[in-house]
């Protein structure tokens, strides 16, 4: 099989699975549906592995698969760009998706919408693959929107629950805000670069670096800065950066497997991937990168605080995702794109692990999500417990687990960066380390340690989850433990990405890091003597002290700092603000337009012309009398008219 057909196979296999399970789900039955979808994703994963080997042997690909249509000077095509960056994303997406598919067999086995769910998650995988494999902005946008659409369907999977409908609508609307920016960015690129093809746009970017456009007033703004910030607004929507993060915690309303898929491998990583892919553009605009850095740092810090006070197990993990996405964004802002992708990869594994672990707990607890009603579970669920410990250690950044390497690399990169806002970012990510370690071990201790707090009935039925759930946990625990150690050297320090990512000389701390690199052993030793490591240990120790030893203290603290607690509990009032300002404001503006503009002006014109057509239509209808001599007369009359026209003309 040629490489080209393998490229095609990667997105099409999950699509075929999704279509089979979606359209013929009833005929295939439950088993048939999960077999076809799992098979599709497995094929996709294996093909990705083969392609990865080929790519690292030096065979890149950038070409058109199908030209959809061509107009005057732009052509809309489906095309693939296969390079190390793409392949890395393909591996992460297909692997995590495969694990989620298998896990779903166990988690959803009682759900009436079983086939529908499998169809959706396969479709989700397809959309994400189209997004990462694209070689042009149109297909990128297609994947972008398709991911948004399927996430909407999945978050609202239990569509009879009002909260789920609220959450999916919210996710959809917030993503619309981001997508508008993204679309405007693409529009500007098309207008100024005259192409939607990555290679062409990147090649022309340096020539347009000095160009500027006038936005609102006469004062010109750098074109590339505007383009990059608009694109980044898109990334903020998908990758849940402040203030467009509000949809992500609510997306927990979907079934747990989908939380794992959204948070770990797909959707939220789309923004990070896109900015890395656009590195040739972002590198040319320092202002844009400053924006990226500050937004990322704020997200990393403030969202981590929110994780501290959550009591629902999935919500803790959700806020940790937000905070970790902030870390990746910080790396992007510091021009350390490889580090961002590296953290994206390690995070995908340990975050999927934590989510699926949380799901395993929820499954065993009969869909109880409140950690205050858990405790002592490690005796009942040893495999889930061990894998959760690995995931938490990775998240907290303890060596030698994966998170340590990627997080330390981010911190070093931002420390070495000289861009504006780097000081603030350094502070944010350092404090973030402490908070992250604290809330992740708080979750671990509250769930698995201490005295059991669940009711008698639930406790009697506690048991380890079936193999379809534990096997993915184990398979995800392995990369959570080792990928950092194995990949930091090639991915961050070496030439892993080749030309896929551009970092201009003098930008960011990555170059400095590479000069000081003395091997991975040295990196660990150095890391264990540095501040972040001790901050993480302090976080764990604090969590142990508060939730294992002096368990009455948290309540006391909460009473003492009531105001702060309320602020965190209301998530800094973002939702409230959106509701009052945007939702109600939009309603008011909308109704004003409706009354003044729509009803009087537009409806008048539209209905007026509709009435005209209708009346005309009624008249014309009467020509059709049904009498044959009328018909014949009209034909003869037609000939007569045509004839006289020509002889008058001649």
């Amino acid at each position, binding site marked *: 099989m040629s490489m080209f057909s393998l490229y095609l196979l990667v997105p099409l296999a999950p699509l075929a699975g999704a279509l089979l399970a979606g359209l013929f789900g009833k005929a295939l039955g439950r088993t048939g549906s999960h077999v076809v979808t799992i098979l599709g994703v497995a094929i996709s994963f294996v093909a990705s592995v083969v392609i990865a080997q080929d790519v690292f042997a030096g065979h890149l690909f950038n070409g058109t698969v*199908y*030209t*959809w249509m061509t107009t005057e000077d732009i052509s809309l095509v489906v095309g693939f760009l296969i390079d190390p960056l793409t392949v890395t994303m393909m591996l992460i997406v297909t692997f995590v998706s495969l694990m989620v598919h298998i896990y779903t067999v166990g988690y959803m086995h009682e759900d009436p919408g079983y086939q529908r769910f499998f169809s959706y998650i396969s479709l989700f995988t397809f959309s994400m693959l189209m997004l990462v494999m694209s070689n042009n902005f149109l297909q990128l946008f297609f994947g972008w929107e398709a991911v948004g659409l399927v996430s909407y369907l999945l978050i609202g999977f239990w569509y009879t629950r009002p909260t789920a409908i609220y959450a999916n609508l919210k996710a959809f609307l917030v993503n619309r805000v981001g997508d508008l920016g993204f679309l405007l960015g693409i529009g500007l690129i098309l207008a100024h670069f005259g192409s939607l093809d990555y290679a062409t746009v990147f090649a022309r970017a340096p020539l347009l670096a000095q160009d500027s456009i006038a936005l609102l007033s006469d004062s010109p703004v750098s074109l590339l800065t505007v383009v990059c910030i608009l694109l980044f607004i898109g990334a903020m929507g998908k990758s849940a950066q402040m203030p467009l993060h509000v949809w992500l915690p609510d997306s927990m309303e979907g079934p747990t497997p989908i939380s794992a898929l959204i948070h770990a491998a797909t959707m939220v990583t789309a923004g990070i991937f896109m900015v890395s892919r656009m590195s040739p553009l972002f590198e040319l605009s320092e202002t844009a990168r400053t924006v990226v850095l500050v937004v990322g740092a704020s997200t990393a810090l403030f969202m981590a605080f929110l994780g501290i006070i959550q009591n629902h197990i999935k919500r803790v993990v959700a806020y940790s995702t937000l905070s970790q996405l902030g870390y990746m964004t910080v790396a992007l802002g510091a021009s350390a794109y490889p580090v961002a992708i590296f953290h994206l990869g390690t995070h995908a594994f340990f975050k999927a692990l934590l989510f699926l672990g949380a799901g395993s707990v929820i499954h065993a607890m009969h869909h109880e999500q409140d950690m205050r009603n858990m405790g002592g579970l490690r005796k009942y669920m040893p495999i889930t417990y061990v894998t959760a410990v690995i995931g938490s250690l990775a998240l907290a950044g303890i060596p030698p687990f994966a998170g340590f390497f990627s997080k330390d690399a981010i911190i070093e990169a931002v420390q070495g960066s000289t861009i504006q806002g780097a000081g603030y970012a350094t502070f944010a990510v350092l404090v973030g380390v402490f908070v992250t370690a604290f809330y992740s071990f708080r979750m671990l201790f509250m769930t698995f340690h201490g005295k059991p707090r669940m009711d008698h009935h639930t406790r009697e039925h506690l048991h380890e989850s079936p193999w379809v759930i534990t096997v993915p946990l184990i398979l995800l625990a392995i990369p959570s433990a080792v990928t950092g150690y194995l990949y930091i050297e090639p991915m961050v320090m070496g030439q892993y990405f080749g030309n896929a990512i551009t970092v201009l000389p003098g930008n960011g701390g990555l170059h400095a890091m590479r000069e000081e690199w003395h091997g991975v052993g040295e990196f660990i030793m150095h890391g264990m003597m540095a501040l972040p490591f001790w901050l993480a240990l302090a976080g764990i120790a604090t969590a142990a002290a508060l939730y294992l030893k002096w368990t009455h203290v948290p309540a006391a603290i909460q009473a003492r700092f009531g105001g702060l607690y309320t602020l965190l509990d209301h998530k800094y009032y973002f939702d409230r603000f959106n509701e009052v300002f945007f939702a109600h404001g939009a309603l008011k503006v909308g109704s004003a337009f409706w009354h003044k503009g729509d009803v009087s002006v537009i409806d008048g014109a539209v209905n007026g012309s*509709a009435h005209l*057509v*209708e009346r*005309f*239509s*009624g008249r*014309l*209808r009467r020509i*059709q009398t*049904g009498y*044959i001599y*009328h*018909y*014949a007369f*009209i*034909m003869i*009359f*037609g*000939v007569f*008219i*045509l*004839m006289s*026209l*020509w*002889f008058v003309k*001649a």
Partner: protein
Amino acid sequence: MTFATPYLAPVYPEIFLLTALSAILMLDLFISDSKRFLTYAYSQLALLVTAALLVMGASGHALSTFGGMFIDDPMARTLKLVAIVAVSFVMAYSRTYNQSRGLFRGEFYVLLMFALLGIMVMISANHFLVLYLGLELLSLSMCALIALQRDSARASEAAMKYFVLAALASGLLLYGLSMLYGATGSLFMPMVANAIASGAADPAILVFGLVFVVAGLSFKLGVVPFHMWVPDVYEGSPTAVTLFVSTAPKVAAFAFFMRLLVGALGPMVSDWQSMLVIVAVLSMLLGNVTAIAQTNLKRMLAYSTISHMGFLLLGILSGSLAGYASAMFYMVAYVMMSLGAFGLILMLSRDGFEADQLEDLKGLNKRSPWYAFMMLLVMISMAGIPVSVGFFAKLSVLSAVLDAGMTWLVVFAVMMSLIGAFYYLRVIKLMYMDEPVEESPLVAETDHRVLIGLNALAILVLGIVPQPLIDLCMASIGQSLRG
């Protein structure tokens, strides 16, 4: 006296079809009603073999025989294939409908195949008389088909109207052809073209003939003001026959235009171009506007057909190879959409119940969501909304007109499409937003279900991947007209 056997290879499909249908006609006499399925099966088989002969005999260049009266070029082969497939679908879609109405008789199939033979002869005609021969074969068969339901007053009335008006149109056409013959001295189309190009013919007589020819052609295509038969025939015929009338004969009419106007009267392009502009504009206007006022589904589709044919004329009148190819593309797309629409209407009808009112579509989504979705695809394609083949059909025709420099015509056509979108979208609204009058889901035989699925999905797939079909039309037209 010697008789040289003509070169028969290009005519094998027609010869086979004629032989097979005569055999089926005989066979049908001797089988009982309970075994009538055999007639149907053999007819389908005959179509299959005809199509196979056609495809196997295909070559990249034009062949002619019978002293040049019959021509077999890539355009002819493509159009014939479309016609054969359309007739095959007609037979399959109408099987259960016919069974429940006493129409499941040998006549239906034999007449369909005679009509198809006429269509194939017309498509391949290179001589005025051959063209007329095919035309009459088609017209008479169609007339008998329309009247097949003998005890239905409406069907008889429709057949009567069609017969009289078709005779009138034939008269007009023959009169026009005789003028052309008088002016050029030949009945062979290439020689007519040469004579006109050389300037030897009297232009006044030529234009005189041309007007009558255009009138005759327009009748066949059913465009304004020669369209009056269309709504009555569509409504009056049994739906199975309407399905046929709205598909394969249109392919023949398209070939008719190509052979006569482009082939024989090509040098007079500027004259017929402006005649077709009038006809096309009137058709789009009247078709779309009148369709809005219809409550009968079949009548609505009749007016929709008139507007589609007007749109198709735009491609022909642009007078370029790309324009002809776009018109051909439009024709193929139209045939697919029309098959799908009437196929679904046939499915809605049951014993003693003729589903031909718009009301009958109410709440289809609640009854049979899959078929509602199929109808949705057909409707968005007819309205020319993207991700359907109808969009690309309209787009390619419009870009050909734009290239010909008639911007105002493009604007007009788009406005008419906008008006047209109303009644297509109304169908969707009825299916999805209204409450069903009755709850029972549609029932259909497996072959009908599978074919309708393929049909609607083809509309969708060709809307995403239109290029192969566009290329095919370009190649057929290019190879046939350049040589």
